[in-house]
């Protein structure tokens, strides 16, 4: 098992996100169940961090802690040196179940406008700005549709457009493409990689798909289960922009895949 100090991995700049001794448990006394055990992780500004792990390792829980939707039982999270105490528009989470995360009674553009409303953007500007974001996600044609009229991949694009409308500093993605078919998944992988690069957003990306984690990440953190803890952290030294064919055939990609596969099997 490999373990290393994350602070040394990046530049002298303070990390965007720091997790210190982060633990979460449910229940009390003998029925107490430890979900996450003393997680120490740093995420550099602009870094794309993939987190993988077997089901039940608490990766979704970790993301919810980072979003501020759940308070930790012990330990602390610092975002740009400020302790995380609750949800914030600067740390936006993209849920896997896009169908439930969108407001079904609002048209696509109005779902994106929800984020603009919460930022206090004037009513007159919202529609145009929502459409500008929809254009970036290739959704202009369906702006006046309701979410229920769209395919799963398009609905997830709407959720990502809404997340971007908040202009977050940190994008937390919880297996966002897990429910999509392979072709749609690949297209969205490339879009999110491009957006993260363009906007210099820090991304924490949860997935159970090993290849997706390597393909997207600057770094891949593997969690072990029962209780959830960091099993390994490794830099992905593959050039960007990445390519669905050549990157996945790169010997370095395959080396990562072999190593992480073995690691996940061990746990």
């Amino acid at each position: 098992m490999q373990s290393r100090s994350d602070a040394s991995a990046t530049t002298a700049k303070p990390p965007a996100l720091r997790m210190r001794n982060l633990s979460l448990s449910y229940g009390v006394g003998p029925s107490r169940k430890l979900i996450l055990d003393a997680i120490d992780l740093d995420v550099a500004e602009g870094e794309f961090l993939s987190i993988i792990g077997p089901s039940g390792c608490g990766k979704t829980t970790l993301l919810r802690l980072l979003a501020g939707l759940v308070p930790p039982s012990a330990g602390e999270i610092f975002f740009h040196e400020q302790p995380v105490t609750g949800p914030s528009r600067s740390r936006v989470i993209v849920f896997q179940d896009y169908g439930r995360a969108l407001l079904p009674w609002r048209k696509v553009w109005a779902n994106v406008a929800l984020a603009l409303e919460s930022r206090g953007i004037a009513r007159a500007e919202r529609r145009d700005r929502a459409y500008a974001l929809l254009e970036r996600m290739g959704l202009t044609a369906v702006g006046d549709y309701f979410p229920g009229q769209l395919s799963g991949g398009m609905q997830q694009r709407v959720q990502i457009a809404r997340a971007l409308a908040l202009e977050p500093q940190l994008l937390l993605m919880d297996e966002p493409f897990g429910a999509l078919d392979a072709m749609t998944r690949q297209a969205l992988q490339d879009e999110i990689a491009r957006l993260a690069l363009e906007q210099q957003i820090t991304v924490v990306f949860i997935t159970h798909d090993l290849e997706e984690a390597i393909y997207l990440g600057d770094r891949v953190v593997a969690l072990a289960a029962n209780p959830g803890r960091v099993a390994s952290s490794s830099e992905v030294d593959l050039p960007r922009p990445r390519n669905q064919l050549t990157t996945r055939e790169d010997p370095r990609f395959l080396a990562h895949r072999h190593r992480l596969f073995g690691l996940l099997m061990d746990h």
Partner: protein
Amino acid sequence: MRHSLILRIFALLFAAALIAIWQLATDARLFSPVFFPSPLRTITALIDGASRGTLWSALAATCLRMFYGWVLASLLGIVLGAAIARSGPIRAYLEPTLEFLRPLPASAVIPPAILFFGLSNEMTVAVIAFGAVWPVLLGSYHGFTNVEPRLEEVAAVHGMGALEYLWKIAFPGALPDIFAGIRVSLAIALILAVVTEMQAALPGLGFNILMAQRMFRSPELYAGIIVLGGLGFLTNQALLIAERRLLRWRTLTR
């Protein structure tokens, strides 16, 4: 398209057949014309009432009664349902009382309502609101308790306050259930509008029907009943159209 047209034609034929049987039964003098008029005499009475204006004023009085009572019931039901659904203490305080009041027949509260408000329109509105509030209350409660939990988190991430959350997430989410309650309430409102008029001798279709019965003017009696039926039908249709427009997102799916 063609299928639904055929169904509609059959629905109309069925209604026409019933009227024909009615006409034949009265022609054959199966019932005394004093108690049971022919459709023709009924329609004549209807046209007569419409041309003299008596029908319109009665219709307007009943409509207003029903409308005010129903609006009051709907507002009360939505607000109470939301409050009970969203707040544990409010539910704990109100639930036993409401469970006691709910099974009370609305007609039983007419006498105390008359003592409070007199033989007035306020009395009828109060009684209608009391009787019609329950379906909306239950619908609203159900709708506001079953808000998608994921959307609560979406609201939290967007930094929504409690009121903004209620208005933008909870209320639109509860609207389908609220509409279901509101439509039942509309039917109850019409019933109670007629009952209170009869009890309190206030002008309206209900009172006209009662008077026609007492004076053995059976064509007017049946004309009144037909107008009431039409009123119930049309108001329900109007509400259905409003519902279809407001909840368009539910029917438009992939």
